[in-house]
Each structure stands twice: as C-alpha cells, then as structure tokens.
C-alpha cells in the first residue's frame, strides 16, 4: 500500500513536469500547426539556466523564473527569426525546428560541458517526512502543486481572458481572426513564446527533481512529450493532461519494478492507444 502511494506521488510529480512540456507543444501545434521539435531545446536551456541561477543566487523562485524567461526569449527569437517565414510549409518547419534542437543542445554542451551537473533541491524544499511508511518529499509535493497550478492558470487564461479567446479563435480559424482586426502573427509569436516558456519552466523544475542536468535531457524529455501528445491527441490541452498522467504514473511504476524498461513503457502505451484510436485519446480527426 505504501509502495503504491509512493509510486503514485512519484508518478504525479513526473506527470506535472511532462504536462508543462506537453501542454506547450500542444498549444503551439493547435495554433501554428507546427510540431515543435525544438521544444526539448527550450527545456534544456530552462534546466541549465535554472541550475546556474540556483547555484549563484540560492533563490528557487528567481532561478525558476530566470529559466522560464530564457525559454520565452528563445521561443520569441526562434519564432521571429525562423518560423515566421515558413508557415504553410510543414516539412520545412519540422526540419528547422529539429535544427534548432540540435543547435540549442550543442550550445549547452559547448558552454557547460558534456557531463552532468548536479542540481540540488533548495534547502527549504530538501526536507522529507515519513508518514505511515510513505516517504513524503517536500520538493515532490512542490512539483505536483506547481503543475496543478499551471494547469489551473492555463485553463483560466484559455477560458476566461481575452488572450485565451484569441488563442481558441486562432486555433479554429486564424484567417478569420485576422479579418477581425487581430494581428494573428503576434498571437502566434506569443503562443510560441509561452509554449517555450512552459518547456523551460519544466526544465527549471526538473533539475532538482532528477538531481542533475545533462545536455541530453532535452531530447529525452522531448520524446516523452511526443509520446504524450500522440497518446492524448495533438492539439488538446485536456489530452495532454490525461497523457501526462498516464505516462507519468506508468513510468514511475515500471521504473520501480524494472528500471531499464522504463523508457519502453511510454512508447508501448502509446502504441497500444494508437492501435485502438489512431488520433489519440482526446484527439479529433482532422476535418477535411
């Protein structure tokens, strides 16, 4: 029983990080119709910036915020500099975003070296308790709460604000949005930057969660995020929450019993779902 609870908490913390990645990916796809292969690059920059700032400032909030800010900035630059000229050309966009991932990961390797850098949790969140045999780690709780808060804020923004209405409108018909006098390109840039910021946020949180940051973690996280959006249905925020929960908890369980197979778990679950529902759990068939 206590093992199950431990695994559940562990899985929820995974899910929270995954959700930050996947929701950005899915938002960007929903609006811009681009699968952003550079997402892992934003993640890894968030992770390294966060770790660097944490060791320099010893302030959790500042380091996470700094990581996210770097992500937003990178996203803004990539959208403005590269993506903007290629809308409507899906293959070339995929190729470009892949190139961006390559460059961002290699830059990290160049600046910080190829070896893992340890990223301890801040002392305020380094504590843990054992309650009824279940170890409760403060940082784990923090990550879960953070993920839940981001989900709530995202939903709130999408449902209740003008920006949210613009994003939803843009998802269904960007041209009509332009005809209503909205500078759609700017909404595109904003969403790309927000998505990149969410990925970097996930990066900043995951340094202390994994205990270390490595240049390859971007690619690994990216793959998990892809599994999740394919599983949940590309373009659906609800789907990425569901997918994150499934993959996060499955990963926690499988890595407890068979650590070396953990990476297989998500892909196998995704494959099973795709056999039954080719468009994912909450995805919708593209309207012709």
């Amino acid at each position, binding site marked *: 029983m206590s093992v199950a609870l431990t695994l559940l908490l562990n899985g929820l913390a995974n899910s929270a990080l995954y959700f930050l990645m996947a929701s950005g990916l899915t938002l960007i796809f929903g609006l811009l119709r681009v699968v952003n292969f550079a997402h892992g690059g934003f993640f890894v920059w968030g992770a390294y910036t966060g770790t660097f700032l944490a060791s320099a400032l010893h302030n959790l909030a500042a380091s996470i915020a700094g990581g996210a800010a770097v992500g937003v900035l990178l996203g803004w630059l990539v959208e403005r500099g590269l993506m903007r000229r290629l809308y409507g050309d899906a293959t070339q966009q995929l190729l470009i975003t*892949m190139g961006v991932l390559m460059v961002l990961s290699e830059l990290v390797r160049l600046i910080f070296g190829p070896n893992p850098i340890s990223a301890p949790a801040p002392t305020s969140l380094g504590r843990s308790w054992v309650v009824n045999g279940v170890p409760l780690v403060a940082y784990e709780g923090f990550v879960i709460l953070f993920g839940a808060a981001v989900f709530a804020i995202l939903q709130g923004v999408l449902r209740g604000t003008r920006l949210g209405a613009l994003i939803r409108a843009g998802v269904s018909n960007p041209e009509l949005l332009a005809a209503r006098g909205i500078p759609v390109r700017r909404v595109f840039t904003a969403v790309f930057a927000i998505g990149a910021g969410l990925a970097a946020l996930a990066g900043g949180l995951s340094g202390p969660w994994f205990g270390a940051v490595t240049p390859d973690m971007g690619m690994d996280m990216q793959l998990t995020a892809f599994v999740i959006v394919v599983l949940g249905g590309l373009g659906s925020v609800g789907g990425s929450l569901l997918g994150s929960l499934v993959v996060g908890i499955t990963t926690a369980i499988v890595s407890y019993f068979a650590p070396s197979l953990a990476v297989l778990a998500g892909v196998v679950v995704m494959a099973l779902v795709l056999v039954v529902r080719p468009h994912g759990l909450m995805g919708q068939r593209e309207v012709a």
Partner: protein
Amino acid sequence: MRRGMRQLARMAQRSPGRAGPLARVADRMPSGQGPRWLRAVLFIAAVMYPLVFGTGGITQLLEQIFTFGALAMSYDLLLGYTGILSFGHAMFFGTGAYAVAIGLNQGDGRLEGLLVGLAAGIAGSLVLSGIVAFLSLRVREAYFAMITLAVGQVLGVLAGSQALRAVTNAGDGLTVPVPDLLSGNLTLYDMCLALLALTAWALGRLVHSPVGDVLAAIRENAARAKSLGHPVVRFQTFVFAVSGVIATLAGAAFALAQSFVNTTVYDVAGVSLNVLLMVVIGGAGTLYGGLLGAALLLTAQTWFASVAGGAPWLREYMLAFGILYIVVVRFMPKGILGAFLHRRGHGRWRKSSDCKTSQI
C-alpha cells in the same frame, strides 16, 4: 527539379533502351552523357585507389562515405522521392549493426554467424517498419516524424540497457570479430563499395519503375493519388520497408568496417539527423545528393577531428553542422546537387497543389 530527378534516375539505369516514357522530359536536358561517364570514372577510381595508394586513413574515410552514402540514398527515397519525413532512420542502421555484431559474437566470428545475424537484422527491420508504418502513416505526417524519432531512441536505450548486457554488452559496446572471408582491409573496402553500387543501382531502378511514378504522385499530391485509386499507405509502407532494409545493410557494413559497435549507431544526432543533413545538403530527390552530402560531411568531420587537438571547441562539429543545417534548410532548400541540376525554380518542399494564399 523534376527534370534533374529524372535525369539522375535515368543515369542510374544501365541500359539506355530501358528508359521509360517518364524519362522523356529528362531526355531533353542538355547535360547528356557527362554524369554517367563521370560516375563510371569515379567508380573505377574508387576501386583502384587502395590498389595504388594502399589502405589507411583515407580508405577508412571512404568506407564510411560508402556506407553512409548508401544510408543517405536510402533515406532520400523516403524524403525526396516519397515526401515522408522520418527522424529515426537510425533504428534500421543500428539494428543492422547490432544484428551483425551479435550474430558474429554468438557465432564466434564464423560466416554462419554473420549470415544469421544479417537475416535476423533484415527480418527485424521489416517488422519494425511494418509496426511504425501501421501506427503512424494512417494519421498525419507529423506523427510519422514523432513516432520514428521515439522508436529510434527507444531502441538506442534498449541497446545500452543493463538488462540486455548478456547480448549487447550494454553501454560498453561489442567488438565485432570479422569472419576470415572478409578479413583484410581491402575486402571490407570492396564490400562497402559494392553495397553503395548495389544501392545506387536498386534505387535508380526503383525510382524509375512504375512504382517510382506512383511515389512521385504521392509526393506531389497524396490525396489525389488516393482518389485515383492508388493505395497510398501501402506504397508508403513498402518504401519505408525498402529504405529500412538498405539502411540495415548499411549498418551491417558499418559494423564490419569499424569492427566495433556501440549505442552510437542508434544515436539520433549522430545517425538519424546526420543522414538527414547529408540528404538536405546534397539535395533531396536527386538520389546522388545524399552521397555527395555524406562525402562532404564526413570529410569535414574527419578534418575537424584532426585539427581539434589545438582547438578543442572544434570537436563541437555537431554545433557547426546544426547551424549549417538550419542555413541550408532555410536558404537553400534544394541542396547542392539540387541547385546545380535544377535551373527552373519550383520549391522542393512546397506541395504546390495546395498553394497557401493567406497572408496572415
């Protein structure tokens, strides 16, 4: 671009009399017999080189160029000729390399071990391509890119996992005992060259056959090809499988030539993206563009590595390649060979049937 593509396709065909009707457009191209002549000279030069200059660093580089050239050409069949984008070509390359390495290790370096390993690798690749195609081709283009990336990465992790240490030696990699028949650098060199020649011949024939015409139709306008009655997904699956088998052979040749295999053969950046880069730089849809790209990149890579002693940052050639790659995709989408061959400008990637008109 169509003309150049056909031109190359025709070049790849030994007998000019067999040039089918689609080659007619190409027949009017001015460049004529030159490239075929060039191709023969290059082939003979490649055969002669080690006989004259002996083996060494250069032949090792050439072996790599031959195997990666074959790999890149098989990838071009997907990207340039059928218009589907995979980020996981390493799944086949790595499977071929590991299958041969494991077969030879289990079979104590005997030829039977090699053959069994090779057969198992090909069979594995066929199954793999079937599964990936079934999962992703029914949905949308981007799914194929994502799922190939994921599957390729998973295989890499599996190859390095402790659970399989008994057969793969996990992260430490396997030394490949080369069978007596193939020992000797020249034999391996010739084998790699033969693989390249065979690939060029087979692919040239494929893209020039009626099947190749259907692939062109799918690339240009898949929806229309389907509404005319071509089973599009079946053709895409077939191409994916063919490309996978060639990549498997390339992986096997690579393992033999290096006589060592580790998880880098499954590496996304090192193989999947590298081969994509080769094709994009050389020119997608030109068949020989991938070979050109492989030659350029591998030569540059070797050069970087040799001068890196004085300047360690030069080891980061992946960064340079990444930047080069973005620049090429962004500003030179036809690649080198593509730009050279095609004077008439139609965008390569653009599916011009559904022109985007919106200016938002």
